[in-house]
């Protein structure tokens, strides 16, 4: 591949998403006639695509799957999935589905053909129920996790009876800080040593080690929040020796403090500062970058 920097930049900006409609159309035309250029665009998409790992998942409404099945021509063979009570009800007049041999196969092999359809149906229904149950379980884990850790974060109606309100899982009322934030804590010179991620809705933060950064023997890295709204730096705790350290301690701070603060790492005695004050200059620091805007 021997492309000019203009072409490389065009491919990269297409993948980044900043081109206007005309330029996007131009890139798509180029891709349709130039395989190597397509490869270059796809490579940029792949490269930047890892950023999507940091994007929070959002469950779409269940009816979207029905629409997709209709649009792909799959919908005509199956009664819509309802919730578990459908398990016992076998619709008597559903036409035999033309299913590829699958889960029902082994079972079907040992029964007479009159039962094949029924078994395949059941297998299919069970699969549908299983994925619905998995989604419910995931939602429950999230709700219960918050309830255990910090029930106050949940909207009033989510507190007492999580089981009946699974479908109500919504963000806490939009606060000033409810996006996703990342800070790259960097030293002199070079790239970041720690990546701090803050979930605006819960104010949970996670510190991730990057590269081979480690404190000297007998010392610990301690994370501080420095804000002009606070009289002195506040410790957010010692950064553990594991690759990840996750804590909810930011919940005690106002959103604008969390958002505007500088996050700094100092070297302290093993186990952290004994008196709540930092004892070294920051070796790494950075500010939060909003990667996901707050709800408006």
């Amino acid at each position, binding site marked *: 591949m021997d492309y000019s920097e203009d072409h490389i930049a065009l491919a990269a900006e297409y993948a980044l998403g900043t081109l206007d409609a005309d330029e996007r159309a131009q890139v798509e035309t180029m891709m349709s006639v130039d395989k190597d250029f397509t490869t270059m665009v796809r490579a940029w998409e792949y490269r930047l695509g890892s950023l999507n790992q940091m994007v929070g998942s959002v469950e779409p409404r269940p009816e979207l799957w029905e629409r997709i099945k209709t649009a792909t021509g799959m919908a005509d063979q199956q009664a819509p999935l309802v919730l578990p009570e459908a398990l016992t009800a076998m619709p008597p007049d559903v036409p035999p589905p033309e299913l590829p041999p699958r889960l029902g196969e082994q079972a079907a092999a040992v029964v007479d053909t009159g039962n094949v359809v029924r078994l395949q149906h059941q297998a299919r229904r069970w699969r549908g129920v299983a994925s619905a149950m998995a989604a419910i379980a995931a939602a429950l884990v999230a709700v219960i996790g918050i309830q255990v850790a910090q029930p106050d974060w949940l909207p009033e109606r989510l507190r007492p009876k999580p089981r009946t309100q699974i479908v109500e899982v919504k963000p806490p009322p939009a606060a000033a800080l409810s996006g996703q934030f990342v800070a790259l804590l960097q030293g002199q010179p070079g790239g970041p040593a720690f990546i701090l991620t803050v979930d605006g809705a819960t104010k949970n933060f996670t510190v*991730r080690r990057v590269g081979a950064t480690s404190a000297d023997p007998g010392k610990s890295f301690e994370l501080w929040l420095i804000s002009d709204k606070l009289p002195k730096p506040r410790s957010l705790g010692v950064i553990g020796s594991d690759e990840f350290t996750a804590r909810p301690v930011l919940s005690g701070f106002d959103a604008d403090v969390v958002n505007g603060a500088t996050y700094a790492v100092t070297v302290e005695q093993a186990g952290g500062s004994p008196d709540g004050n930092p004892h070294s200059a920051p070796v790494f620091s950075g500010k939060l970058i909003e990667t996901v805007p707050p709800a408006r």
Partner: protein
Amino acid sequence: MLTPAELVWLIAAVAKGDEAAFERLYAATRAKLYGVVLRILRRQDLAEEVIQETYVKIWNSAGQFNPGLSSPITWMASIARNRAIDLVRKRSELSIEEEPSAMEVAADSPDPLARREMTEELKRLLECVGRLEPDRQKLVLLAYYNGWSREQLATKFDAPLNTVKTWLRRSLMEIRECLGL
């Protein structure tokens, strides 16, 4: 979330018309893809439309997925993201701010485990993004996550359009160099 290898296997099955595999693929990936496009489109109706088109395209062109060129989730997310960006660029009159209800559904459920699962590719990319000046880091991340155009970025950064264009280009070239490409 299934492993990349499991997703590759599912996509291969979908390419052969396996409907159950398609359903599993949808179940495993829908929330991630929906999260990605909802962030860009900010409207449930548009995001659903894009997700529907995306999965129809995946159903129809699963055979084109090349595991040597991309990861399954990145391939799928790129289809979704490109459609979302095409939509917002073509509908420039689309005003996000006019839709106060738009983000009601966009709950970012706390998902610390996802961060534990950062791939090597992401770590490398973030290291390279981290070498840009702070404003450029923000520029690149806002562009990617929000699908913002240069105009929107120029407004946000209070800079002339051509300056933003130069910043974007330089930033991308620096990332390219940093990644050793």
